[in-house]
């Protein structure tokens, strides 16, 4: 238990460069471990946050967005959440909470937008609790994992 009733958060901002995605993975995994996320799912968490950040970096680069990519790590009482936000505008609101519609086949267009779809497919396959939203101001991927009470490392 943490003192007070505010949620513990760690926020990370990084320039939309591929080399920083690894840093985001490492930070997310370190904070998740501390929050009490099961060791067995840390690999999946690391992969999922990497996919979300890679996608955000790609969107910022392709849209010429100068702003940094945002990663917010939220330690709640019973769950650990990660939000990855981008500032790349979408023409129309999109909701893809169910990633089942994303088939990896489209990723065969090497290097194109297909890789975004494959990234989402991987996230959907790895994370049970995931929400993907986007509008004209940008997109947000929210993922969460249960934490084991008392397992948090202080």
């Amino acid at each position, binding site marked *: 238990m943490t003192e007070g009733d505010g949620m513990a958060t760690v926020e990370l901002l990084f320039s939309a460069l591929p*080399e920083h995605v690894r840093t985001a993975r490492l930070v997310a995994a370190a904070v998740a471990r501390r929050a009490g996320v099961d060791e067995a799912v840390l*690999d999946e968490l690391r992969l999922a946050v990497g996919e979300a950040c890679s996608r955000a970096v790609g969107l910022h680069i392709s849209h010429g967005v100068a702003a940094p990519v945002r990663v917010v790590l939220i330690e709640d009482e019973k769950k650990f959440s990660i939000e990855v936000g981008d500032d790349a505008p979408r023409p129309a609101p999109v909701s893809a909470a169910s990633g089942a519609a994303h088939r990896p086949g489209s990723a065969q267009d*090497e*290097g194109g937008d297909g890789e975004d779809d*494959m990234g989402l497919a991987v996230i959907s*396959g790895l994370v049970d609790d995931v929400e993907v939203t986007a509008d004209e101001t940008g997109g947000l991927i929210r993922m969460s994992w249960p934490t084991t009470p008392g397992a948090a490392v202080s």
Partner: protein
Amino acid sequence: MDLSLSTETVGDRTVVRVGGEIDVYTAPKLREQLVELVNDGSYHLVVDMEGVDFLDSTGLGVLVGGLKRVRAHEGSLRLVCNQERILKIFRITGLTKVFPIHTSVDDAVQATD
């Protein structure tokens, strides 16, 4: 950790040993290597992933791209991987149906369709 790449010719196969992390930053290096091999006439590739610590969808995209290239020359691209956390990524994306995945380089080198 960066990506390490080395190649070795075994019979008519070219073995590409990959080590480290394949992600959005390092995947272009793997792509370059595969493109170069195909351009140089190596159409039967074995990608040894046993030294890979991390693989994301960008890396999967590069492997699929490599497969497309070798298939254009009636070639093959086989993977060597025994790591459960890496195999899982191929499974959840359905790519276990696309790539022949072997447990050893010897096995992959000797395999025929």
